[in-house]
């Protein structure tokens, strides 16, 4: 099962996904992370600029990854009860 890397930006709390070279606010930009994931997380923890960096399981293809847990789907889409605040990169319907 593919994994992607996510976390929250220290300064803003914004939910972010790793796009291979930088952070993106859209899960649609996320890349699948291979065996290098754990080392990447360890580096990010040490850098102290992203809170709670974590690898999460997703299904689907790059560009349309969908997290396997409801919690991570809510993080990716925005609150399911506020369509007006949706992040746009993952439809609230998939929650």
């Amino acid at each position, binding site marked *: 099962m593919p994994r992607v890397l996510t976390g929250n930006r220290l300064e803003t709390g914004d939910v972010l996904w790793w796009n291979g070279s930088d952070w993106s606010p859209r899960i649609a930009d996320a890349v699948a992370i291979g065996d290098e994931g754990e080392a990447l997380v360890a580096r990010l923890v040490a850098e102290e600029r992203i*809170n709670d960096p974590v690898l999460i399981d997703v299904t689907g293809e790059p560009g349309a990854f969908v997290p*396997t847990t*409801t919690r991570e789907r809510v993080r990716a889409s925005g*609150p399911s009860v506020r369509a007006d605040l949706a992040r746009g990169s993952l439809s609230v319907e998939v929650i």
Partner: protein
Amino acid sequence: MYRYDQYDQAIVDARVAEFKDQVARRLRNEITEDQFKPLRLMNGLYLQLHAYMLRVAIPYGTLSGTQMRMLAHIARKYDRDYGHFTTRQNIQYNWIKLEQFADLLDDLSKVEMHAFQTSGNCIRNISSDQFAGAAADEVADPRPYAELLRQWSTLHPEFSFLPRKFKIAVIASDTDRAAIQLHDIGLQLRRNDAGDLGFRVYVGGGMGRTPILGQVVRDWIPVGQFLSYSEAILRVYNRYGRRDNIYKARIKILVTELGIEEFTRQVEAEWALLEPLGLDAPQAEYDRIIAQFAPPAFDPAANDDLDLSDPDFRLWVEQNVHPHKAPGYAIATISLKPRAGIPGDASSAQMDVIADLAERYAQDEIRVTHSQNLVLAHVRKSDLYAVWQALEAVDLATPNLDLVTDIIACPGMDYCTLANARSIPIAQKIAAKFENDIAEQRDIGELKIKVSGCINGCGHHHAGHIGILGVDKKGEEAYQLLLGGSGAEDASLAKILGPGFDENGIVAAVDRLIAFYRSARAAPDERFLDTYRRLGPAPFKAAVYG
């Protein structure tokens, strides 16, 4: 209302300066997140699913118009234009940015507000009766005593690192509108035959993983000594409360493990040592604080006439307006449970309207209720129609207080990192079945549905006539159904009825429960809870599970 003196303001200013420095050091990477996290939590700042979440304390749920307008300003400037009023009479913002936090704290402190002690293992915001100072049945306004507790517990050096969080509620009537038996300490102000004021003291109530009702540790403590007595309770807890197991750390577990007799003996022994030390506030301080809660100047010419010819207004008056102790006045509850709404949420624009109404018509006071509604406590009856029209214009006049659509729901998995399941959509789906038919809601009568997204119980599901608890069932959201709880003076804990449901299943189950209740009630005014208490769970179980 209480106004800060120089000491209150100095404490807040010093704490704000301290935390601003801690934030700045974190932003410059001079401290790690592990070092910073406990500091931000002590200042009410959490990291939730979408951003930082800030919880602002509203002492005993009382706000001025100016304070409410500041809460609106904060929602507008630093958040996404809304806030969430909670069951602990506080407000939470869901989209806060750390880099703007220093400015936000400055803004809050300008109106004598702050966010510290809204998280962490300390004495949290003191809660009280939303009708304080207005209810006909109170022996005195409970808020001066809540304010004394606030001052006593603010940065109390001995009680800043308790085994676990600690919640105190204070009321002053036999009707319990603050769920005192579900607090670590519940205080009921009473008057004895000699006319003196004193407290009945409950201890060891709480919800969460192990719900327990508070027990009486002392039937009478004179008001002059209630602070030293509270200190004695906290001391026994601080010394013997369990720090080895977070699930057993609340005072309710200590009281249960020791038994109320032994716990009482220890508190009394501690108090015997403490009381002579003169820890209680001097009479002058009581007088100073009580004077600040002096009743507003009610107009003796205000009369009780009310034109109820507008049927929608009449519905609202019948459902959301309560009698006031002063002739010609009334207590109006503003429902934060509109059609298709989110329980407890209010937009900045709505908060501004409420602030204006409070200043113009309600002696500049607003209250937050533990069922996530707001109250204008002192409204002239002759102004009620104007108030209603203004509320109606911003969707704040839903006439559903205490009815099936007046549902408590915690943020659940739409916002909260600890959640197992979403709470808000369940509340919305249940409400949707009834919200277009107010006559049907009124026929069903008082029905308190309370939804929590996990076992922590922030949505009071254990105190619900119908309680709903979100659980995780192999990665899927699922819901348990509980019946028979009450957070009022007839307090009881709800019990699980049977196997859980998925999202649609729980909504259908509630429907079946209500249909059964309507067919089984002994009289039209027998409440759901009373029918349940009379018949027991078996027929309700049969109605739900067939």
